[in-house]
């Protein structure tokens, strides 16, 4: 189980590929990989966003992410998990968060991946400040993730 904070841009597919290959024999028995990649949008609440700064709480952020991953590991049968989250300045189109969950069964992979994302969004100490055309503003809250559009 790997949790990383990244101060510089990352390429999510290359990260997933590298992590997957490093699993060697184990990956053969995995069977299911569910992932989520969140990238920065160039709009929010009707405004164009040109840049964003991600603040975090060094020490607590890592601690909370590790706790969330441990809970997922205890709750589902997982082979491995990878969580990468950007900090610092990000631009539209930049990946912000990557969650990957390897399991023998797809239900566990899907459930754990979503759980990690929802917990990360509601518990991990990160704060987004958006740079607009004129001025800046803090994002005030995250949208709940379990509502369906269907």
């Amino acid at each position, binding site marked *: 189980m790997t949790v990383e904070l990244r101060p510089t841009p990352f390429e999510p597919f290359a990260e997933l590929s590298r992590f997957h290959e490093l699993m060697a024999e184990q990956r053969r028995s995995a069977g299911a990989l569910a992932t989520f990649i969140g990238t920065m949008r160039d709009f929010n609440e009707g405004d164009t966003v040109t840049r964003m700064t991600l603040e975090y709480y060094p020490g607590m952020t890592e601690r909370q992410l590790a706790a969330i991953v441990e809970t997922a590991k205890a709750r589902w049968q997982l082979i491995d998990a990878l969580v990468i989250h950007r900090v610092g300045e990000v631009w539209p189109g930049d990946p912000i968060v990557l969650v990957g969950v390897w399991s023998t069964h797809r239900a566990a992979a899907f459930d754990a991946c979503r759980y990690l994302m929802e917990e*990360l*969004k509601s518990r991990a100490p*990160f*704060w987004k400040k958006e740079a607009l055309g004129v001025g800046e503003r803090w994002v005030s809250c*995250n949208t709940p993730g379990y509502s369906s559009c269907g």
Partner: protein
Amino acid sequence: MIGLSEIRRASIAMSIRVRYFASLREKMGRVEETLAAEGLETVSDVWKAVSEGRPLPEQILCAVNMDYATPESLVADGDEVAFFPPVTGG
């Protein structure tokens, strides 16, 4: 007789580090401060000490030693207490 090193140790131990993040950090106008621990029993006491006695705003989250806490959570000498707005990562 109390030596200088003992005084220093005591002054470090008898303190609580308070940290602020994001919009709250900007509102407070400071990143962190160190309070004398005397008379501070709960997170709520710490907040009152840094905000001229005002109650902790409902939406502000708090942590003690990097774990989430409530206003009623106890604090002790040497603790790190943090206050911050709702998190918006992911």
